Every structure is written in structure tokens, then in C-alpha cells.
């Protein structure tokens, strides 16, 4: 009975660790997708001057679920005639991102009023910040995973010991 209980607690710890790992992975994938999205946005604005709502609708098609929702929500707000910043902010807040990554994206939303040069610079700046953040996350990934695994397993073991 005790053994079964211990196995259940440890399985719960592994499940918790796995969920967290998946969430971290989702954040990394979203960040990478967002960087690609901003790259395409900059190119399309510079080369084709496609209007922003149309561009976001177009780009949504090739994105992962989180970025697709972001593009569609931001474009939808513009289709409804809402102010650009508020639509962009609401869409950005729904993205699974770290606080500093989200604030870089929000700052971009405030710079989308300008001319081509201004917007492209703002996009490049936001893209650069997000790319740095992704690079840092990737370089810390092995260590983060090790720590998280150790934490969850230790917590599970502690619960087992306490219960026994």
C-alpha cells in the first residue's frame, strides 16, 4: 500500500515536471515563431507596403496556434476600428511569454503609427530583443531542465518520506 502511494506521489512529481517542461517549450516555440513573424512583417512592410490588418491576416496562416491567435486578434481589433495600441496590447497579453518579452512586443505596438522607416526600425528592435531573449533561454535550457527535474523529484521524495 505504502509502495503504491509512493509510486503515485513520484508519478505526480514527474507529471508536474513534464507539464512545466512543456509550458517552457511552448514559450520557447512561441518566441521563435514571434521572431519569424516580426521578420516577415518587416519585409512585407518594406517591400510591399501591405496594410497592417491584411498583413496580419496573411501571416496568421503560417503560424503556430499562439501566434496565429495573436495575429487574428490584433487584425480583428483593427477590422472593428479599435485603436491600434489597445488591440495590439490585448492580443499580446494573451501570448505565453515572459514579462520582458511581452513588454518588448507592447512597445512595438506603440510604434506602429509611424512611417515605413520608423516602423521597420521598431520591428527590428523588438525582433532583436526577442532574439536575445530566445538565445539566452536556449543557452540556459539544459541547466533549467536539470534544476526543474531535481526540484520536482526532491519534492516528490520529500512528500513520500513525510508520508511514510
Amino acid at each position, binding site marked *: 500500500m505504502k509502495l503504491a502511494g509512493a509510486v503515485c506521489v513520484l508519478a505526480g512529481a514527474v507529471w508536474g515536471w513534464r507539464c512545466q517542461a512543456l509550458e517552457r517549450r511552448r514559450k520557447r516555440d512561441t518566441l521563435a515563431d514571434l521572431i519569424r513573424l516580426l521578420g516577415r512583417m518587416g519585409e512585407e512592410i518594406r517591400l510591399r507596403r501591405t496594410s497592417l490588418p491584411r498583413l496580419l491576416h496573411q501571416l496568421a496562416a503560417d503560424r503556430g496556434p499562439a501566434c496565429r491567435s495573436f495575429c487574428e486578434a490584433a487584425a480583428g481589433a483593427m477590422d472593428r*476600428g479599435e485603436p491600434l495600441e489597445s488591440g495590439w496590447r490585448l492580443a499580446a497579453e494573451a501570448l505565453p511569454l515572459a514579462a520582458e518579452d511581452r513588454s518588448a512586443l507592447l512597445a512595438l505596438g506603440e510604434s506602429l*503609427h*509611424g*512611417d515605413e522607416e520608423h516602423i521597420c526600425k521598431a520591428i527590428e528592435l523588438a525582433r532583436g530583443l526577442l532574439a536575445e531573449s530566445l538565445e539566452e533561454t536556449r543557452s540556459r535550457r539544459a541547466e533549467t531542465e536539470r534544476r526543474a527535474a531535481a526540484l520536482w523529484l526532491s519534492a516528490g521524495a520529500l512528500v513520500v518520506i513525510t508520508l511514510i
Partner: protein
Amino acid sequence: MENQEAVRRYEEAARFLPARLRASALALSEADRAAAEEFRLRTGQPLAVLLPEGEREIGPAVTPADLETLCDLATDYSRYAAAETLRCGYLAVRGGFRVGLCGTAVMKEGVCTSLRDVSSAAVRIAREKRGIGEAVVPRLFREGRFQNTLLLSPPGGGKTTLLRDLVRYLSAGGDDREGLRVSLIDERGEAAVMVRGVPQMDVGPRTDVLDACPKALGIPMALRAMNPQVIAVDEITAEADLAAAVQAAGCGVGLLATVHASDVEEMARRPLYRRLLAEGVFRLAVQIRRAETGERTYQVEELP
């Protein structure tokens, strides 16, 4: 019917106002909506509408954020796509409307490259007056050939509206005449109102529009590229425009142009237009007269 159309155009133009101002604009009486010519927005001042009798305040005070939203709505959130006209102080908007802007000019090497911190806007409610040129067009031909024609009126007299309708008729043709290839040099973007390559006003099936291009450059470009039978331009105002028009006339192309003058006598008093008359390029003039009822009449006369 015409009244309903005028109201519909007013409501279409109001769509470019931010939501809180739009509600005030749509609360105006139907008669005023039909007569309104412009929305005027100035930071710190109430939203106003321009009626034939003058400006009337109709809404709450306009904020800088309202003007930003207006620009966003007018450009489909893409000011970068409207850079060419924005630097000239206006936006051509879907539906044929035009938004004039004032703000802080962004200067680079002595040239205005854009406007920022927009402080005032005038949303012009463009209304096509289809059919006003119908009775005029047959009088612009002699022995089946289109004669070079000037359209005369003081500012706000309806020259551009008549020019657009004449271009449409010339381009479409009629029962007893073929449609002509017309090149419309629309420097100020008011005649065809191009939005991303699509004319927002009906300028006829055989009309090629050269948008936002100075007339002096546009006339030779159209001559070389489009093989026009008629070149139409809005407002000859400079010596260079005149020289280009003379060149086009020398190539056997018909010309249709507007000038700021109430009649031929006034034209003859201005040095530039005196030269235009002396060149003998234009054969006919259409004078636009406005009756006290507001109705316009069009009088065609031979030029000396």
C-alpha cells in the same frame, strides 16, 4: 433619391471618425447630413461639420488620440502605405474621401518627408455628381473632334467635379461618338482618388490615371507611355504645367484642364493665363456659374 445618396456618403465618411466622435456626427439631422461638406477636427476644439452656411460644432472636444485614430482608420492602420500623400498633407481614403491634415512637418534635407503630431484634420465628404457633364460634352466637339477645353470657376466652384464627369463621358463615349483614351494626371488625387491603384471615383472605362504626379512631369510621361487621345489635368498653376500642355497639344492630343478664374476676362488679367491664351492652345472654355439657389450652370464659349 439624390438626398439619400448624399446622406449615405456622409455616413460613409463618418466611418473614418473615432467611435466617440462618430456617434455625435451621426446624430445630425438628415437635412444637415445631406448638405454637409466636411468634418473639421482640431485638437482641444469641438468636432465641427462644415455646412453651406458655415461651420457648426456638433461633438465633444477632439483629443490628439482621436486624430491618431482618424489617421489609422483612414490609412487602414498603415501610414507607411500613404507616405507619398501624407508628406503633402493629405490622405486619399477608400470610398473617394480625402483627409487634409496639419501637424508638425518632419523635415529631411529641406524636404517635408512626413507629418507627425497631427493637430487638425478636415475630412472632405466627396460626392460624385454624375451627369453634370452630359449636356456639356457634345458642345466640346467640332466636326467630330474634341477641342482643347478649359474649365473655369473660382475655388470651390466645382471644377474638379465637372472635370471628373467630363472625363467619364469622354472615356465612355456616347451614341454618336466613340469613347476616347483619356490620361488623367491627378496630381492632388482629388479627381480619381486612387487608393492602392484603384480609382475610388468612376472616371470611365478608357481612363488611365497617373496619380500624385506633378503635371509638368505627368503630361510627357502619359504622352510617351499611354498613347492618349485626351489628357486631363486639374489646375494649371505653374509655367512648367503650361509648357507641358503646349507640348502635348503639339502632339495632336486633346487637352482638358481646369484653371482658377471666374471668367475669361479674369484669366486675361493674370500673367500665366494670359500666356496660356496667347499660345492659342485652348479653343473652348466652360464657365461654371453658381446661382443663388446653389445650382450650377455651365456655359461653353469660344476662346479668342
